[in-house]
């Protein structure tokens, strides 16, 4: 990390990583709304507390949000107690009413709806968002809609407690910087450089270079520079781009040639047509970001890929429309009890029309007359979305063509999936184990991308495939989906769970896994892709409790229609 520690903003006793944290927080304190905020990936603990504690330096009131936060808390709503007491409508002020630093806890669980609202709120630069992401696994991460809008990213996982000394943010320095950062001279090349570097790192969103440009101003102001200098651009690029990169920057000679020396566009930079003294070579900035990559990026690259794989916006892939709480139905009369929540508004609505009449006959003088018959409870429709888990034998024994057919069938099913509320997941098994190629998704675009590069060959680790199918099914069920397995194989299990070859053990383990699947109460279909129906496989499907379907030489079309036919009774049941 070349530009950090920084002579002006870092203190000598800080470790480089911790100095970077401090610098990011200082910058955020200068321009919280303009920078959008900070994505803080860390487990809860003293190191994270040291960072969140420093947020008091922000010129905005800190407010905590929770992923299950409702619209009422966000935008304000009816204050029922006050409304009833005063007999007129009293509304509460929502969290978004005043500019504030919104601290979102458990950001990796933020549902799409909340993410969309917060993203919208961030589009008007009043608030800043600090997203505390405690994602344990790479695929649990901040929703993309939010990550895209926050300039800064910090991961604290590698910072030992000993390094995490209290972060003394220099408030005076921050205030000074705040007063002047917007007035700083910015060399026109800065925008060109930042855009070019972002492009070489495979960052498509144009918010990234914009935020980096903004950050460069802030850093220059913090460092007391008269204008934005190369080092400010470099540090800004590191802080904003490193976690967004989707590919390694190619070697410098492979870069597209830098744009021709400034063909200035319609004078939106005051007479800056003269050659720029603060020229910022793109290669140097790129080199600096590249230097920042190994630590911050390698796992981030994986995270980014995984997040895209699971659906980007929700990170955890959890709250897809329709099954986060199910389709709300109209409230029905009833008493709240375990599992049944009172729908207060509906209750009041039910009582409202009768108020005049009840008031006349009431023995006591009350503002609102509620009778037990007015009580309403919330109802949600049963979730009926299904996830089809394809477990496809990609071993050498299964012809490669089979795999191609399975891919085609997955796509076909998915193309018709929406109406049936199907999600599709794909497990491929071959060689030493099974791999979840495609986590449950309903996105055809994603599926195509993931399927494109699926290789085949090797042994048949059937038990591993069944185990993975079960894991996937259990997770899907936790999200309210109904898992159904479609196992495509010729049934010749010959690799054990530990990856060692051996037919007897492999088959025994497959039976155990199949029994576990059945115990869990999941449904399924076994498609025998061997040239002649295999008795062993027929037996295995009985153990699984799955329908058996011998289907040699299936085309993608036949496969998908056979599957649909076989699954229809399951769907009904």
């Amino acid at each position, binding site marked *: 990390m070349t530009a950090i520690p920084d002579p002006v903003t870092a203190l000598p006793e800080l470790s480089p990583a911790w100095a970077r944290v401090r610098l990011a927080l200082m910058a955020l304190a200068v321009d919280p709304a*303009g920078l959008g905020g900070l994505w803080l990936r860390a487990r809860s603990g003293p190191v994270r507390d040291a960072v969140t504690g420093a947020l008091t330096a922000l010129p*905005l009131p800190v407010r905590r949000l929770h992923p299950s936060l409702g619209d009422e808390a966000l935008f304000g709503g009816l204050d029922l107690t006050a*409304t*009833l007491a005063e007999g*007129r*409508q009293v509304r509460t002020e929502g969290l978004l009413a005043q*500019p504030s630093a919104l601290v979102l806890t458990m950001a990796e669980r933020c*549902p*799409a*709806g*909340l993410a*969309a*609202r917060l993203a*919208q709120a961030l589009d008007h630069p009043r608030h800043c968002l600090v997203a505390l992401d405690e994602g344990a696994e790479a695929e649990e991460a901040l929703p*993309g*809609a939010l990550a*895209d809008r926050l300039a800064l990213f910090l991961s604290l996982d590698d910072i030992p407690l000993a390094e995490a000394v209290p972060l003394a943010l220099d408030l005076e320095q921050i205030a000074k910087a705040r007063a002047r950062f917007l007035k700083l001279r910015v060399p026109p090349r800065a*925008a*060109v450089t*930042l855009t*070019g570097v972002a492009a070489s790192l495979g960052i*498509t*969103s*144009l918010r990234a*270079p*914009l935020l980096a*440009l*903004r950050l460069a101003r802030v850093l220059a102001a913090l460092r007391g520079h008269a204008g934005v200098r190369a080092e400010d651009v470099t540090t800004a690029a590191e802080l904003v781009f490193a976690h967004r990169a989707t590919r390694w920057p190619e070697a410098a000679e492979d870069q*597209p040639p830098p*744009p021709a020396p400034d063909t200035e566009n*319609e004078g*939106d930079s005051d007479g800056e047509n003269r050659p720029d003294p603060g020229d910022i070579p793109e290669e140097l900035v790129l080199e600096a970001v590249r230097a920042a990559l190994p630590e911050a990026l390698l796992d981030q690259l994986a995270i980014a890929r995984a997040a*895209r794989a699971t*659906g*980007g*916006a929700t990170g955890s892939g959890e709250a*897809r*429309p329709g099954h986060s709480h199910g*389709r*709300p139905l*109209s409230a029905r009369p009833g008493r709240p009890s375990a599992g049944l929540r009172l729908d207060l508004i509906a209750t*009041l*609505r039910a009582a*409202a*029309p*009768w*108020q005049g009449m009840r*008031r006349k006959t009431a023995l006591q003088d009350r*503002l609102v007359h509620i009778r037990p018959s007015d009580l309403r409870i919330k109802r949600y429709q049963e979730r009926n979305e299904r996830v089809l888990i394809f477990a496809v034998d990609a071993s050498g024994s299964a012809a490669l063509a089979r795999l191609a057919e399975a891919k*085609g069938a997955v*796509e076909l099913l*998915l*193309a018709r999936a*929406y*109406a049936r509320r199907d999600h599709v997941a794909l497990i491929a098994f071959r060689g030493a184990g099974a791999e979840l190629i495609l986590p449950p998704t*309903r*996105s*055809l*675009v*994603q599926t195509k991308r993931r399927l494109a590069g699926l290789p085949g060959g090797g042994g048949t680790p059937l038990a591993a495939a069944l185990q993975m199918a079960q894991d996937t099914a259990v997770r899907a069920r936790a999200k309210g989906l109904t898992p159904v397995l479609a196992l495509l194989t010729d049934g010749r299990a010959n690799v054990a769970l530990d990856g060692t070859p051996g037919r007897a053990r492999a088959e025994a383990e497959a039976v155990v896994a199949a029994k576990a699947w059945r115990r869990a109460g999941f449904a399924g279909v076994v498609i025998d892709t061997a040239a002649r129906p295999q008795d062993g496989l027929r037996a295995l499907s009985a153990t699984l409790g799955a329908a058996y379907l011998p289907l040699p030489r299936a085309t993608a079309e036949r496969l998908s229609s056979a599957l649909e036919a076989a699954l229809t009774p399951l769907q009904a049941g």
Partner: protein
Amino acid sequence: MTKTHTPRQPFPFSAIVGQEDMKSAMTLTAIDPGIGGVLVFGDRGTGKSTAVRALAALLPPIEAVEGCPINAPRRDLCPPWAQGVTDRMVTKPTPVVDLPLGVTEDRVVGALDIERALTRGEKAFEPGLLARANRGYLYIDEVNLLEDHIVDLLLDVAQSGENVVEREGLSIRHPARFVLVGSGNPEEGELRPQLLDRFGLSVEVTSPRDIETRVEVIRRRDAYENQYDKFMKTWRVMDAGLRNQILAAREALPKLKTPGVVLHDCAALCLALGSDGLRGELTLLRAARALAAFEGDTAVRRTHLRRVAPMALSHRLRRDPLDEAGSAARVGRTLAEVLP
């Protein structure tokens, strides 16, 4: 709070760099709302939301009865349940109503006014977002993530142009005619075909590939943020020019000629593509007419058809998941064959 938030105008529509398809699709619906809305699908950070908000500022204002919850153009068209309606007419910006994800059904369609019910024992209707969107635009960001029950509701209303509320003893109906604008990221999920079909036009946006364009985006955005007054001075003029062009096109539209050969072309193209129903054909024609009017032509020509065909038809094709090229390319191929 510390600094008052100066209500800035949205980023000007004409200052959006590139994204010509998106911009022209939106312009066409502004000329002829009957085209039926725009769907913008694509990467993050490509200016989808920016364009919609900019569109709101660009559209010509409407005349409406003051205080009318459904923006009625005449006093006698105001609904009987409306509160606080006066006899005056006001000019107000074309409504662009945001329909947020996770919105409740009550907020969309309207519901019993609790305040009046509790305090006065009156059964009154509190209009929802559909009422406010009447005669304007309804914008749904991340439309593909919208909950199914809200989608169903929208389909229903968009089809009939009327919002029917039967709940809590209320029985209310009011006009709800609006242009749907939806945006989303296809990686996050598919859009239901029924809803897809409801959008007149659909465009895909991608991040610009060449550095020069990307730099220009950054420059303009930076100027908007940091030299607001100067920036707006230039672009407000451009926006005004575009607005006038839209108004002129609206006037020219009824007089525009549609030669029989163009109708024939429309039908031939839709047949060749196998697009479902007549909706595609009608939208294609309407969009082509709007484009011709926008460009000051007196008659629709094949060139107009050719240019609007991808945005009018690509989302209406039967999906062929095994075709790697995507539906826009299919429209392009067929165009080249049918309308050389």
